[in-house]
């Protein structure tokens, strides 16, 4: 019995040492793995960064060459672009101006009605009234509202509708306009030409 009791502390110590040996072995294993992973990651980072730094000059040189090519291309395009845009800008001053330019619009309308007005087929504008321009909601353009009163035959009115629909033409430089509504009064019953008396509400557009 004396022998057994004296062995117990030895066994406990042995157990303690064995357990700690195991714990430390596992910890060392984990530490080695972690360190290996850390070193691998850091090495990759190091390799990537040093390679990038080493090759930066080549990359910058390639970029400079591309920049030079693009600039040449842009200069080449600019030749056509400038001449075309000059033509477009000139046209837009007439068809889609940045200002009201209503006097020019009046002149153009007069010219149109002068062309279609005939003795047996009249087209006469009796009044034009321009309102102030308003900014169109959620749009980058403005509207110049105006009302036109006219005595016109149906065939000429059809011509007028066509003129309005084809307005904004770069070729004949007609200003972009549209009709919002029209109302008519009784035609002159005595007239053989069946002239319509119209009030046309219209809009001209501006940038």
């Amino acid at each position, binding site marked *: 019995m004396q022998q057994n009791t004296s062995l117990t502390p030895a066994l406990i110590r042995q157990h303690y*040492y064995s357990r700690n*040996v195991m714990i*430390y072995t596992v910890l060392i294993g984990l530490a080695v793995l972690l*360190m290996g992973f850390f070193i691998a990651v850091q090495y990759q980072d190091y390799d990537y960064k*040093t390679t990038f*730094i080493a090759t930066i000059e080549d990359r910058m040189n390639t970029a400079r060459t591309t920049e030079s090519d693009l600039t040449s*291309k842009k200069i080449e395009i600019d030749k056509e672009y400038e001449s075309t845009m000059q033509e477009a800008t000139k046209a837009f001053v007439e068809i889609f101006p940045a200002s009201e330019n209503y006097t020019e619009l009046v002149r153009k309308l007069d010219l149109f009605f002068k062309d279609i007005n005939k003795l047996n087929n009249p087209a006469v504008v009796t009044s034009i009234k321009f309102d102030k321009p308003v900014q169109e909601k959620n*749009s980058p353009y403005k509207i110049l509202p105006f009302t036109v009163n006219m005595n016109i035959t149906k065939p000429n009115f059809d011509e007028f509708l066509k003129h309005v629909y084809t307005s904004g033409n770069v070729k004949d430089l007609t200003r972009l306009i549209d009709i919002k509504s029209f109302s008519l009064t009784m035609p002159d019953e005595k007239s053989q030409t069946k002239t319509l008396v119209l009030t046309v509400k219209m809009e001209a557009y501006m*940038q």
Partner: protein
Amino acid sequence: MADEKQFDLKIEPVKTTDSAKPAPAAPVSLPGQAQTSQEDTFLTNIFEKKSDEKSGQANDSKLMEGLIKMEEKNVAKQKSILDKTPEINTSLFIDIEYHLKRKLTILKGAFGSLIVLFLIVGGVSYATLSPDYDYFSPPNIGTNFNLKREDLTKKQNELNKIHYQIVKRDLDLFLYKGLLFRQKYNEYDSNPTQEREADLKDAESKVAAAFDVLAKEYTDYKNYQDALLESDMTDEVAKNKFNLSLIEQLTSNPEFITGMDPKEVKEILTIVSPSKNAELVKIFKDKKSSDIATHEDYNAKIKEVSALYSNPLTTFNSIKDSRIHWAKFIGEINRITKLVDASYEATTFSSTFVTGTGIKYVSFNIDNENTLKISGIAVTPGVDTFTMLAYLIDGLNKMQDPKTPGAFTDAEMRTFYKNSNTTGASSEQQDSKYTSNFTITAKLNPKWKPTNK
């Protein structure tokens, strides 16, 4: 004395085994002889003990054997189930413990060393690679890398700026040529002649060339460098990243936009924005003008591009596209009215009222939501004025064919009103008995085309 007696008593049982040996005579205590007798007794005892030891060694071993056997028998009797207790060599314990202790010490040392090594490696690594720990020999690799990367990103942004300046010019040219093409297209569409067809083809070839230039630009150019990407980035993500980087530069770096027209900056921002850019890429990348088959396809393509880009050209195009073809719809109203009222004349927007029945229009209005409102007067000699108006509403709602809606949809007039009229201003109204002022609303179908075309 008591001890000695105990000692004596202790060995007495041994003596008792030797029964032949006479017991020593009890010491007699005499005055003056007390010390001597004590010494004698002690010596006697020792001698007796010595002699006992010598003589009894054999007997002792026998005795011990006997005792052990008895003990074993007793133990055997008590432990009827368990085996004999194993004998343990304690020296082995000492060896194992020593080795374990040594091993543990080595492992602890190794672990500590590893931690220290780890800290050193980590420290060196961060001091070398991290721009945040650039204290020892600035600039370290991390800082240097960041600076170089920044330089290359700046250069890439510069390249992208020039690229999008080119794209903007190409788009403007495409849209302007598209505008001319659409004019020719409308002219040809309204009155198709050979001359107009030739003009249209000429305009189309110019648009096709402009389309191919844009397609090449979108297909060939890459707006990023692989070296500037994270490893898991897709092509699309990378492009977006650099487009966003360009947007940031265009909006927040005045130096970057030096020499650029603010309008140009605004227009480039539109085409670089991720959503618009994705759509434009879809239209132009890896495409050819030869994929666009008809005039209508070109027309549709120009409209599509125009909707994605914002400048005066596209605004102009969108206004033109949103306008109503009044002549077309008025013609259709006249046609339908003629079916309801045989004496209706399109030239006056009115009936001749020869039969005393007829419709006369007073106003036409189309609002921004493409809602048509037509007002007029219906006249009948009998009380069936509403029947005529009902036919007119049905005529406006009639489908072009079972699957295609006509020029108007949802035509309606919910309130019908009439009065008898004997004091009308005109002769036809005076002759008539009933008149009805009406207002019909209807939705325009902008895609409608007259069937006789």
